[in-house]
């Protein structure tokens, strides 16, 4: 957030060749600029949430947007998540494209009914007569030393709901583009943001705002390797990359795939990879039971059965509530636990 913000208009001016279209951004700032661009592109885009206006959100992701777009487009709502999401549904019926911010993932549940019963099903129920172009932004994941309900990973609860799409970004380039793609999508999308990486200077990357982005619902090989395939998303991508770097220094080359889209899943690149490496380690912070990694492992063993050299493995949070943060270093998948799983797969 320390970098001087570009003026409101600079993002709209389209100079494909101009180097000024490239900015070095954190994930948080990239989301902020992506939201700004989406609001400039379409005046039906609204932002709704607690503290998103004057404060710019508790993580400052909507910083400056109310100042520039006004209180009619960036709404500091009453404190009620069912209200935020339920009214977003109605606004969408009326032709708006609401972007809801949920302050922390642990506070989305008062709105779960609206998500499950209306947001995810109206298009189906009306056989396409009503579209639900609603985005719900959810900062999620642990590692920030917080009190209860501020560090959870509930994404699989949402990936399980038919009619809803779920994505998660893991780097500034994706943050910038995926949020805009989610907003232009006519389907309801839960947009999970890796909160502990929001302001990570180490992850700062050049974002070319004039580039052509990849499609939203595609997974991507982000590091090539031969010994095993690591699959992660959101905050776990960085853990996988760190593990791959460490393994490489000992001569083991690991392939890393950023899932990006949690629903629908794009597993073709995962199958391709596992057919080459023969080993899969799927990583997420959520408890393992009925998580996204369960789905990935099931599908891989179905599609890649004859290629597997070892059982498909998982590195996840434990099947417990998120523990007091003094214990989160144990709970969260880390480089050591990922490498331990790699070792087991290699020595099977």
């Amino acid at each position, binding site marked *: 957030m320390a970098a001087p913000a570009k003026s409101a208009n600079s993002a709209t001016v389209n100079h494909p060749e101009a180097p000024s279209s490239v900015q070095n951004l954190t994930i948080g700032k990239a989301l902020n600029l992506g939201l700004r661009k989406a609001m400039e592109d379409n005046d039906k885009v609204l932002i709704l949430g607690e503290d998103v206006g004057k404060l710019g959100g508790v993580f400052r992701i909507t910083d400056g947007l109310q100042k520039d777009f006004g209180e009619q487009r960036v709404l500091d709502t009453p404190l009620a998540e069912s209200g935020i999401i339920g009214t977003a549904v109605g606004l969408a019926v009326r032709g708006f494209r609401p972007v809801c911010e949920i302050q922390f993932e642990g506070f989305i549940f008062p709105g779960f009914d609206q998500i499950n019963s209306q947001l995810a099903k109206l298009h189906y129920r009306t056989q396409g007569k009503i579209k639900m172009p609603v985005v719900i932004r959810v900062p999620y994941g642990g590692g920030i030393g*917080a009190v209860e309900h501020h560090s959870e990973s509930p994404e699989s609860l949402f990936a399980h709901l038919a009619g809803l799409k779920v994505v998660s970004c893991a780097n500034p380039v994706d943050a910038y583009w995926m949020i805009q793609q989610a907003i232009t999508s006519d389907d309801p999308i839960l947009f999970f943001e890796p909160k502990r990486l929001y302001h990570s200077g180490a992850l700062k990357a050049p974002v070319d705002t004039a580039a052509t982005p990849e499609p939203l619902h595609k997974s991507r090989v982000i590091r090539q390797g031969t010994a095993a395939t690591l699959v992660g998303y959101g905050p776990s991508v960085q853990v996988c990359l760190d593990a791959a770097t460490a393994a490489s220094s000992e001569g083991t080359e690991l392939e890393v795939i950023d899932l990006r889209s949690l629903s629908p899943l794009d597993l073709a690149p995962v199958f391709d990879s596992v057919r080459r490496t023969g080993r899969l380690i799927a990583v997420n912070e959520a408890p393992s039971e009925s998580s996204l990694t369960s789905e990935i492992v099931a599908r891989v063993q179905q599609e890649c059965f004859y290629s597997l050299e070892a059982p498909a493995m998982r590195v996840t949070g434990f099947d417990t509530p998120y523990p007091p*943060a003094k214990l989160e270093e144990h709970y969260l998948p880390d480089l050591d636990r990922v490498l331990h799983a790699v070792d087991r797969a290699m020595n099977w």
Partner: protein
Amino acid sequence: MSSPEQWAHPDQGAESAATTVQPTPEQVIAGLRATTEGGADLIQLLTPEGERVPSPIFDPYVADVDIESLRELYRDMVIVRRADREANAMQRQGQLGIWVPLLGQEAAQIGSGRALLSNDMAFPSYREHGVGYARGVDFKELLGIFRCSDQGQWDFARHGFHPYTIVIGNQVLNACGYAMGQKFEGKVGNPESSGGENEATICYFGDGATSQGDVHEGFVWAAVYDAPLVFFCQNNQWAISEPTERQSRLPLYQRARGYGFPGMRVDGNDVLGCLAVTRWALDACRNGNGPVLIEAFTYRMDAHTTTDDPTRYRLSDELEAWKLKDPIERVRVHLTRNGGADADFFAEVDKAADDFAAELREFCFTMPDPPPERIFSNVYAEPSPVLDAERDEFLSYLDGFATAGGER
């Protein structure tokens, strides 16, 4: 509006909805927050200048509060404030992960907390350290939550002080269920002569929480089941960066009317007023005339939490205006003016508060971290072989590091 009499006889003097004049937006804002006095309906027994204001309705509820008791209320508030400041400082020094300050809300919390009897139950949100103190919870037992080493483990039943609830509004329905249980078990409305002991429950929440569905459902449930529940809303004017007018068009206490029970606004910085009004409300509940809504009109003098920066959304003028209504200062002035306390007394209280803070600090600095197996304990009441296996596998994995040369 706020006279309990009127609520006991709601037909008398009640305007019909059709003739009620709608407030202007300016009136709404003035009534909701602002640095005014909280409106004409504010119940106050001790003014910011330390004057005792007589109240025919509420005086009987504090008739037993003599100078000595007032000194004790003063002591409570000073100690709680000192502990709050110490915890805030310890967060700054990295000893706590976060702190949720109560600064400015001492009177609301001590006044209401001291109104409770031992069989009553309190359901806090996450800022009610003062209520916890009044319920006999050692302040130290709260620190683990904010040090992120536990999630609160005092003796809930013994203290009549439920675990903290962070998800806004959840506890209101939980408190309502507890109060319904008190009623179902015959602990409400027993004549004093019968020797049957009556009970009541109090539930704390903020101005922001009043928008949450759970809170509205709590109002409905409590009303339908005549639950012995005091809804204690500390309107500290802010829900993080959002002022109270983002939550309501009318003063919060007036909402009660729509649900069919009394609502009152008390000066939340007046410890005597809070004590009296809460005692009145608890009495009503114990006698079977619950529920009751109390809006304690107060001010969050510090940031929302230690991670918040209020300079982004509110003016320091507002804080300055509220400093003149400080909850502790008015008691000090009153005691001094009425010969209730001298410099020695105040010095002694300050010393006690400093000692308490030092004790807290010592405790916090030596608080052990929980062991890794704590992650797996008490997920279920019944045995879970699956989880036991997960724990054992993880612990032997950790042991591997120890035997491999203490990498961890």
